[in-house]
């Protein structure tokens, strides 16, 4: 077993060697610009891009013409949300989203609010999912867009996408989903989900960084977007800029592999994830899973280790790469807004660890991580005044803390 162990596959994934192999010739040999319509260099680049487009489309049950390549999911989210807000301005100015969305969605919505749009941020229930009743109640005759993520990047919780899609369709509202964490991991089909716009990213499914896509429905309904980047009119005018051919080829190959291997891979990771969860629960008391276990990505686990702070926990397992919802580990001074939204309390948000398993996670690695974590949590609890107080019977919620 090689150290350090990578167990942070929600942040990014390594490029699969088969993907890299497919990409390499497009840097030096087939370097043409697909927009060059009058020579062979352009043609072969264009052909490679169209093959990739088909592979990405096939992964989500779309047609190739519905795939717009972008620089990544942040751009896709911006294009979808701003593009709809601008294009359908006459129809209305109300957008519905949710408090646990990725910053690329939340901040885009906030920017539109400054420009006069009205945005409803739906709360989530304790399990991390929105309530469909809340969604129905939020819809007005000015609502032009519902944007709700398919799977959360921190807690892996799956939103009821098909049910949201049905409501959106019934009301004639465009439905966008940030599907970065779900695509290529578990089956996701744009028609079953009744979704109109889908953001995707290559580097979350063993493709390269710097390339993503936006699915834009062409039929029933035909969705129109106001372009956000102007120029040569690439990608049906929705996203100008010379195509990142090697990146797109890599994305296509990654999508093809994901489609072929998804069934076995997701089952394998679910088994490993369940083992990780079971062993941690067997070894340690007072640990809490954040978000629904039933509606969750098979390779995600997010646990709060009560009375132990996340950063000190990460310091103790420095040969394991995971992430924490504690503020100390991130640039911001606030703990994870996703965990706070679940209503579990800031103290548990500070004590959380996100595990993301992936293509190269092994059984041996899971055992190692369990052993390391168990030792460190026990050691830090011996050092924790909170754990001591609880063992003495003090109710921490009744204490008068001096916040600083």
């Amino acid at each position, binding site marked *: 077993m090689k150290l350090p162990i990578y167990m942070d596959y929600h942040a990014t994934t390594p490029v699969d060697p088969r993907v890299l192999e497919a990409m390499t010739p497009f840097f030096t040999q087939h370097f043409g610009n697909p927009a060059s319509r009058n020579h062979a260099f352009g043609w072969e680049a264009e052909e490679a891009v169209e093959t990739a487009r088909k592979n990405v489309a096939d992964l989500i049950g779309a047609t190739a013409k519905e795939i717009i390549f972008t620089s990544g999911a942040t751009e896709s989210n911006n294009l979808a949300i701003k593009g709809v807000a601008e294009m359908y301005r006459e129809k209305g100015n109300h957008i519905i989203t949710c408090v646990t969305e990725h910053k690329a969605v939340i901040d885009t919505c906030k920017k539109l609010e400054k420009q006069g749009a009205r945005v409803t941020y739906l709360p989530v229930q304790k399990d991390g999912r929105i309530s469909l009743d809340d969604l129905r109640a939020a819809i007005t005759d000015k609502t032009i867009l519902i944007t709700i993520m398919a799977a959360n990047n921190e807690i892996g919780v799956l939103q009821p996408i098909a049910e949201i899609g049905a409501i959106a369709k019934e009301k004639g509202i465009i439905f966008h989903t940030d599907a970065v964490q779900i695509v290529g991991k578990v089956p996701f089909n744009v028609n079953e989900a009744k979704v109109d716009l889908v953001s995707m990213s290559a580097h979350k499914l063993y493709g390269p960084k710097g390339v993503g896509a936006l699915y834009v429905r062409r039929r029933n309904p035909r969705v129109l977007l106001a372009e956000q980047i102007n120029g040569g009119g690439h990608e049906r005018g929705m996203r100008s800029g010379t195509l990142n051919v090697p990146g797109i080829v890599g994305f296509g190959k990654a999508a093809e592999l994901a489609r072929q291997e998804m069934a076995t891979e997701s089952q394998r990771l679910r088994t490993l994830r369940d083992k990780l969860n079971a062993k941690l629960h067997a070894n340690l008391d007072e640990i809490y899973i954040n978000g629904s276990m039933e509606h969750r990505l098979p390779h995600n686990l997010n646990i709060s280790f009560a009375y132990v702070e996340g950063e000190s926990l990460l310091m103790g397992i420095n040969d394991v790469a995971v992430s924490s919802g504690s503020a100390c580990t991130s640039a911001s001074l606030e703990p994870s807004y996703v965990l706070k939204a679940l209503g579990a309390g800031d103290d548990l948000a500070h004590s959380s660890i996100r595990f993301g398993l992936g293509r190269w996670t092994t059984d041996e690695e899971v055992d190692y991580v369990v052993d390391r974590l168990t030792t460190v949590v026990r050691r830090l609890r011996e050092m924790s005044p909170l754990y001591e107080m609880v063992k003495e019977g003090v109710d921490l919620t009744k204490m008068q803390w001096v916040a*600083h």
Partner: protein
Amino acid sequence: MAYSDKVIDHYENPRNVGSLPKDDLNVGTGLVGAPECGDVMKLQVKVNPDTGVIDDAKFKTFGCGSAIASSSLATEWLKGKTVDQALAIKNTDIVAELSLPPVKIHCSVLAEDAIKAAIADYKKKQGDAKGDAAADTHAQPSA
């Protein structure tokens, strides 16, 4: 973010982890911070009543590595100091010793607060003890 070697050393080999009997008249206990903020420090001093010197100091901390290191260092420094010398420890001394980056300065502030709270508790107990003794003589009916 990289930690300084001293922070790592205190995290891996914390000095003086534990608890002193908090009802002991010569023990002062400081509990500062809040779980929602991600750090809570409990720092205790045991003062020799004859010399006024801190004989022992213990801590327990819920917090990041820098918070653990700050409180661990504080207990090291407290031992052997008089109560007044202890109050002279400044958070900036801790920052300098541990090479804390700007985002971790609050950890040192919390450690200074914990020292002050522990000493204040000790002084309060000493004052109350005298007061109680006086009160007792008044309240206790002679048997």
